């Protein structure tokens, strides 16, 4: 089956972000396909490359990044949700004349149309909120 994920919880909510990651890993393990993972709301903060978790804490940012890169998944961060929370790629940083570029690879910024597209083109869209 073709799945997409909608993730909305902040990285601070470690259990939900971890749950979503384990779910995604299990999907691939069982030979399902992931069409897209859409990061919305507070979850856009997972896509920062600038977070430094305390030494004793698991690095959920790195875990997500490595998983997305390893499987070359389509990871889309809602651009409006990202901009208002101060998460910028090179292009947006230049557009708004900011001195920061903090969107990690392999995340892309795009619009809510990508969420609707994922809902239309997947057999199941699963929300983690």
């Amino acid at each position: 089956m073709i799945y997409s994920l909608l993730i909305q919880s902040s990285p601070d909510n470690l259990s939900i972000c971890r749950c979503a990651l384990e779910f995604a890993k299990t999907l691939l393990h069982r030979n399902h396909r992931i069409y897209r993972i859409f990061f919305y709301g507070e979850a856009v903060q997972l896509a920062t490359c600038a977070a430094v978790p305390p030494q004793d804490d698991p690095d959920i940012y790195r875990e997500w990044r490595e998983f997305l890169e390893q499987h070359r998944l389509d990871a889309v961060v809602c651009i409006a949700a990202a901009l208002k929370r101060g998460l910028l790629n090179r292009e947006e940083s230049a557009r708004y004349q900011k001195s920061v570029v903090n969107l990690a690879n392999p995340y892309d910024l795009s619009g809510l149309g990508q969420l609707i597209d994922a809902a239309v083109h997947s057999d199941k869209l699963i929300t983690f909120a």
Partner: protein
Amino acid sequence: MQKRHLLFVFRSSPYGSGRAREGLDAVLAAAIFDQTVSVLFLGDGVFQLCAGQAPDDIRNQHKMLQSLPLYDVEYLYFSSSALAERRINAQDILIPGKPLSDPEIADLMATADQILTF
């Protein structure tokens, strides 16, 4: 784009987080992309429907919801039991929506192609 039935479930109170507002933005995106959109208010989400909201300096969620018919979002539902649990009177809801019992909510969820929860 193919046309599918997307059910948006709102479970958050209007102002405690950005979720109600961001959920509504997603509903509008679905409407713009010409999908069949239903919106269901569950749990604390029914507080979004209450009339008389007067937030200072932030967007009034109730007013935004009233604009949904302009975007051809015609199917609004709310949970009767969520209303009763919170002692909200149906006449205090000024948005045209249909009250649903819990079994009717299950039926609605079964008919949707996708469910997006906010």
